[in-house]
């Protein structure tokens, strides 16, 4: 797996590079936005890790430029700021995922693997089916006109499933998408999360549902 890391802080860059190489990834690095853009367009990568605050510009410019050129390489943004508006700004610019500093190495690796796997299959920004309306950008679920609260983990599972709606997603992949404060979720807590998510989405008739495919995984299905 080939990964481009664009990060200006030396120690952070070296940490990310070492951590990803240990996980068997081939890493190219850039310390500036301009070199990052050059490398991203020149060579094909499976994923890009992008720091948002770079000395020569806003990291999101790289996102916009790549997307404008039709490049769909998944992009994971790193930021030292962490408010909701920052997340929305990143997703609007075409980033696929968002990680706040300081992050756990295991989580960084898992997110990159998840992004590379669902390449070009980002969840829709807005999904409306029956009485269910899911705004993935603002992370808001409404069912029958009522706002239904989802926790960050429930969103992670829902996003992983919705990105590949109609296809089977394995339990292992879903497990990897949920992180408990930097440790992977245990299988039993995954079951708890899945059952809550199913309850919150309601029945298939209301709009969408998660179906179990015995021995294989789970499928997200929506009406219409």
């Amino acid at each position, binding site marked *: 797996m080939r990964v481009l890391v664009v990060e200006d*802080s030396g*120690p*952070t860059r070296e*940490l*990310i590079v*070492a*951590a990803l190489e*240990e996980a068997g990834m081939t890493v190219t690095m850039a310390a500036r936005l301009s070199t990052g853009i050059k490398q991203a367009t020149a060579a094909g990568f499976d994923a890009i890790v992008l720091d948002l605050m770079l000395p020569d510009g806003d990291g999101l410019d790289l996102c916009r430029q790549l997307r404008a050129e039709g490049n769909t390489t998944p992009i994971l943004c790193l930021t*030292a*700021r*962490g*408010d*909701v*508006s920052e997340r*929305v700004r990143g997703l609007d610019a075409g980033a696929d995922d968002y990680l706040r*500093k*300081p*992050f*756990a*190495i*295991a989580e960084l690796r898992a997110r990159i693997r998840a992004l590379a796997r669902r390449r070009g299959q980002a969840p829709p920004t807005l999904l409306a089916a029956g009485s269910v309306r899911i705004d993935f950008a*603002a*992370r*808001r679920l409404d069912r029958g006109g*009522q*706002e239904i*609260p*989802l*926790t*960050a*983990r429930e969103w992670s599972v829902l996003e992983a499933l919705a990105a590949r709606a109609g296809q089977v997603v394995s339990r292992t992949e879903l497990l990897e998408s949920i992180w*408990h*404060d*930097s*440790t992977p979720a*245990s299988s039993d*807590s995954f079951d*708890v999360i899945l059952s*809550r998510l199913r309850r919150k989405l309601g029945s298939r008739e209301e709009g969408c549902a998660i179906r179990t495919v015995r021995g294989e995984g789970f499928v997200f299905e929506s009406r219409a």
Partner: protein
Amino acid sequence: MKPHSLVFRLALLQQVLAAVLIAVFAGSAVWLSARTLERQELRFLSATARKMADNLDRDLEKHDDLKRVALETVGEDAPVGVRVDVLDEQGRLVATTAPGRSARREETWTRRAHLSHGGWVVVSTSTRPRRNAISALILALLLTAAPLLIAVAAISRALARRALRPLSRMAVQAEQATLQGDLRALGHPSDPVEVATLSTAFNRLLARVDKMLNTEREFTQDAAHELRTPLTVLSGELERASSDANLPESRREGLVRAWDQARGISGLVEALLLLRGSDASATEAFVPVNLTDLLRDLGHELGERLPDRAHDLEIVAADEVLVWGQAPLLSSALRNLLSNAFKFSAAGQAVRATSMVENGEAVVVVDDEGPGIAPADLDRIFDPFFRSAEARANHEGFGLGLPILRRVARAHGGDVTVSKSDLGGARFELRLPVWSSRRHGS
């Protein structure tokens, strides 16, 4: 109107001044009139006495019989309202204009003139007309003064209130600024000089306070941002190192402990950002958080960190206890409660963590079988840097965990309280508003 109100005092002062002025004016008017009347009367009496004495003396030149002459003259010459008595050299009454009424009790003014042929002319008049005139004057003054005083009373309060209006306006502005949490300039262009001076001084003070607050806020935010990057490297490298399978177990354990501490610092930095950031940006980052999930994760984490105490922890949790909040902060708040409970209880003593929704509040209760909190310390335990005797004697720490915990709770619209547990030790209760649909649209 309260007696200590400035309006009341000013009005009272004006009323007293007006009353004193009116009293002085009226008093001097009455006194002057009385004196003028008395002088005129006495001058008239003197002139009359002299004139009659001269007439008598002239007549006595012709007939030297005082009694006969006196009786003739007195009857003819006496002016109306004036009593004239003629006395001989021995002081005996010879003639009078008021026969038979010699013993008058009435107060009178008297003037006398000596006759060159021996004897006296005594002229007197009653003071009653003058007293009547003065009484009339006093009555007239009273009739004018009373309505005047009432008018002054009414106007003075309005005047005082009007004069103090710039001050009450400033108070309203200051109150609004407090409510809305921003320091804006006080005063109004139309304010009089004295008030304008005051508001200028206040504004200078406010500007300074505002600047200090902003500097401090910016510093904390910058510091927190600057800390996040090295913390990433610190905890990341510790995580990498501790996952090295070739390391001896004891070395690995040390690295895991160091990694835990690095994550603890990250939690503190996030708490600083939340507590120092402006309210709006802090709550903007709030998302639905399930306290039960946090509690269960912490239970797992504790089980790994303190394997010998894993059996002491009992978690009684409702499936979903949802609040609006920042998961890392709430997680470190709960971690703080649990670690405290374990820190202050011995192996084998139970720690019970309960989560539930009660009366529209999300509640997490942590009970322990430890020594509990001394009643005297219950009020102070959330004060920064306060450490109980028990904590100072047996445990490390800075006394910052609970104050930060309380501030995190309050930043989430709730609070944390401490009491005695039915398990015998301390009971900490975190109460936050339960999740409810709100704003959003962003």
